[in-house]
């Protein structure tokens, strides 16, 4: 008899910190350089070379931990994780093990309207490995440009109960890290990736089942698919009376299935011990407070403020707070036109501006400037141009430094709000379309759209539809 199982999921996320140089040497962290060009004796693991901790990395790590509501541990220790692999030049990875610099955080996620708080066990610093490139003829090449790049590993509590929750959690972590300026959120380049621990237990059971670790998942879609595939696999095993083996598996997006990488017996004994080359990391109160200040508003705080104080809808607040660049742009426009209803800025940004926005890590490039948008929305708000015209003007100024005002003047796009001109147009239309007039009088208000449309056509869109509607209503009722 098939039973119902409850999935228990915890994620371990690796996020690259946005430092100019590596965690323990001065080499650049630039992505995309020729292989083995960002290297030195330290990150090549040459004999005699020693690590020196990058203070900037510590600061960004602290900021990440604070943003994830973790407490900061004043004295933490770097440890060596020992294993052999060609992309690991020293034969060990410098990481944190027994005493990480932060612990006990949490994060709120929302899935299908249900809110949930997920625990974070710890956040620790570590260095990234290099990259093995498997070439032709069985030869493998090693590129150590990435070796020594600073990472934070964010270890989540096994609090997630579905693949959708896992994806929401991964997204929320990404958004927060990008927001506070510590990560570029670039999953394709591997600067944000995760491992997922998945186990099943009969619904109602409180002890955990045997967990399987899914390695190196680098997209939100794959995390969901990988976990679903693993849940399906484990369900078949348990339903058949079998036992899930503790092991590490990988997800193949092609087949949609997970496959075993190594069993528990084959698992490495990493022989962690404190790295004698590095003194304990001491993170003082002053540094913590500086990073707390540098952190600024988190996405959730921005959303709450926008909804509560500016009257934005939840959906608009959600969309516009996806990237710190969007928030800066929105707030920048708002500051230039303080009298304008924030909702109007939000609407125009959602429908027009975001379409032309290109996100590149921490940076967003917009097709217009804050000033151009502020000027355009002022014209719209004053009724100088119609909403339709605003879109046209937007399209005209995109990618240029032209002022919307100048474009409007140049093209004679000012709204025809001369009541006399509009009235004569409308009277003419009413006379030629008595049937439609009757319908309006009979209460079919939607027919008004026909007349408004005709006027807009006749004025080539330069009439203000609001004014037209009002005038039409007046004329229809009086005649």
């Amino acid at each position, binding site marked *: 008899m098939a039973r119902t199982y409850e999935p228990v999921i915890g994620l371990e996320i690796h996020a690259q910190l946005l430092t100019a140089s590596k965690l323990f040497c001065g080499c650049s962290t630039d992505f995309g350089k020729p292989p083995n060009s960002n290297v030195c*004796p330290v990150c*090549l*693991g*040459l*004999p*005699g*070379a*020693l*690590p*020196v*901790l990058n203070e900037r990395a510590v600061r960004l790590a602290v900021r990440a931990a604070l943003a994830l509501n973790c407490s900061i541990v004043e004295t933490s220790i770097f440890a*060596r994780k*020992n294993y*052999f692999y*060609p992309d690991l*030049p*020293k*034969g*060990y990875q410098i990481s944190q093990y027994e005493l990480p610099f932060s612990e006990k955080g949490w994060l709120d996620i929302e899935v299908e309207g249900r809110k949930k708080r997920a625990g974070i066990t710890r956040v620790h610093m570590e260095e990234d490995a290099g990259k093995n490139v498997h070439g032709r003829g069985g030869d*493998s090449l*090693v590129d150590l440009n990435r070796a020594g790049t600073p990472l934070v590993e964010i270890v989540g509590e096994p609090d997630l109960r579905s693949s959708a929750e896992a994806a929401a959690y991964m997204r929320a972590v990404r958004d927060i890290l990008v927001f506070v300026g510590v990560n570029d959120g670039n999953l394709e380049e591997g600067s944000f990736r995760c491992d997922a621990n998945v186990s099943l237990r009969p619904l109602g059971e409180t002890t955990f089942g045997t967990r399987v670790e899914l390695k190196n998942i680098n997209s939100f879609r794959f995390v969901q698919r990988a976990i679903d595939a693993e849940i399906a696999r484990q369900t078949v095993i348990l339903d058949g009376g079998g036992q899930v083996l503790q092991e590490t598996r990988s997800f193949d997006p092609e087949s949609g299935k997970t496959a075993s990488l190594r069993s528990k017996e084959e698992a490495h*004994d990493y*022989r*962690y*011990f404190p790295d*004698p*080359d*590095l*003194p304990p990391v001491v993170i003082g109160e002053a540094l913590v407070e500086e990073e707390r200040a540098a952190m600024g508003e988190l996405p959730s705080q921005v959303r709450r403020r926008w909804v509560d104080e500016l009257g934005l809808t939840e959906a608009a607040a959600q969309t516009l707070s996806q990237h710190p660049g969007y928030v800066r742009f929105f707030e920048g426009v708002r500051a230039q036109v303080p009298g304008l209803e924030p909702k109007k800025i939000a609407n125009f940004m959602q429908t027009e501006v975001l379409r032309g926005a290109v996100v590149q890590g921490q940076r967003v490039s917009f097709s217009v400037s804050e000033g151009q948008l502020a000027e355009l929305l002022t014209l719209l708000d004053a009724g100088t141009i119609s909403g339709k015209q605003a879109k046209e003007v937007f399209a005209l100024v995109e990618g240029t430094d032209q002022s919307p005002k100048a474009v409007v003047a140049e093209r004679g796009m000012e709204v025809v709000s001369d009541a006399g001109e509009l009235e004569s147009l409308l009277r003419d239309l009413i006379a030629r379309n008595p049937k439609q007039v009757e319908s309006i009088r009979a209460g079919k208000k939607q027919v008004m759209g026909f007349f408004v449309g005709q006027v807009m056509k006749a004025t080539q869109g330069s009439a203000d539809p609001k004014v037209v509607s009002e005038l039409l209503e007046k004329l229809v009722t009086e005649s």
Partner: protein
Amino acid sequence: MTQSLLSLSVTELAERVRGGAVPAVEIADQSLRAIRERSDLNAFCHVAEESALAAARRLDEQRRGGRPLGKLAGVPIALKDALCTHDQPTSCGSRMLLRSGDDGREHGWRSPYDATVVERLRAEGALLVGKANMDEFAMGSSSETCVYGPTRNPWDPERIPGGSSGGSAVAVAARLTSAALGSDTGGSIRQPAAHCGVVGVKPTYGRVSRYGLVAFASSLDQVGPMARDVRGAARVLEVIAGHDPKDSTSADVPVGDYEAACERGVSGLRFGVPAEYFGDGLDPSIRAAIEGVIAKIEAAGCTVTPVSLPHTDYGVATYYILATAEASSNLARFDGVRFGKRVEAPGADLQAMYGASRNAGFGREVKRRILLGTYVLSAGYYDAYYAKAQRVRTLIRQDFDRVFQDVDVLITPTSPTVAFRIGERLDDPLAMYMADVYTLPASLAGIPGISVPCGLTTVQDGRDSSPELPIGVQLLCPMFEEERLFAAAAGVEELVRAT
């Protein structure tokens, strides 16, 4: 030309070169010739003839140009082969760092950079004449495990010079150079200094940069000087000591005036004699020599007090857990991938390449220590060995803290025996490890120590008695009290010479 220049002390030689009395080229010449003539001692694995002569010529030009010369101008110095040099090969006494060159011969690894201590020596005008032999990866007390064969003691070529910095000690003792750098993890400077009759200093942990020293046990390794007199060692230490931003464990503590401290002598110092360093296993002639020194110190008006360091007995066990643990990790980078030995059977996989390369590259003692260290760090054993040894290390450190409340300097033998015969302990690792019984505790505590020659003795060697062999007395001080250490050592040196 006679070889008399190499009989001069470091300080005398440097002053003559600075004053223009002696051209540096002449010194370089004499040193290089001496190294060639005594190649039987096997003290050097690489002689840097051209670069040493070039450096000497530059010095002489500099002097003729009226520009000031450094504190070690024209002083020939041997570097232990564990120190990275950009212009000389570095092999750490191991086959692991050799690779076949285009000429079909094996060559040592070429470091792209200089160790910080090497940079500092160059900046002060030292002539770096070559790389000195050592036990493979500094693991040994006899300099026999070197890939280039055993180094011989100039007092008796049938005997070991001590180790692991044996080549450095021999270079100084045989007057091939005026000074040398060694590295000391558990006694590797002090013990060979004692066996070769020279002065050897293990500075406070953190006093000297480790950047560019091929790591054996990172929490214990220190680079230090060897010279024929205390003052020479003091000058070399002054040059190499001091904070290095490239080594996070180097201390930002000001370097003292060590040479000036040598003028102070022993007066006013309170000496302590730890009972645990005079127990079973101590050669009676060494005991007598140390007691002789103690008598002279007392006669000079110093107080000498018996003290106790109760955890001394645990030193060897503690050391061989911690040092091997760190070594097993430090030596992981020698994997055949980026440099050094690589052995690949056709079609063999990655694991096979690792295994074959490391099997061919490492010698027996190194393998033994990697295995030991891997074991003590393994899951399920970590607490019983590594974690426990760390706690014992704290106890050993506290022993010293306690006695240094009452005394200024500890005086002990450096080694329980004089130099033993080549081959005698190679198959008995425990006997080999006991050679460092008196030097290990200071390494574990991180405190500075020095070995000063204090006499000669002969030992019965079958039916014959050996040639005269040197004895060293060890002095120990609290962390960063190198000035006091040099004052005491120079005082003891003077009292010994006065006899």
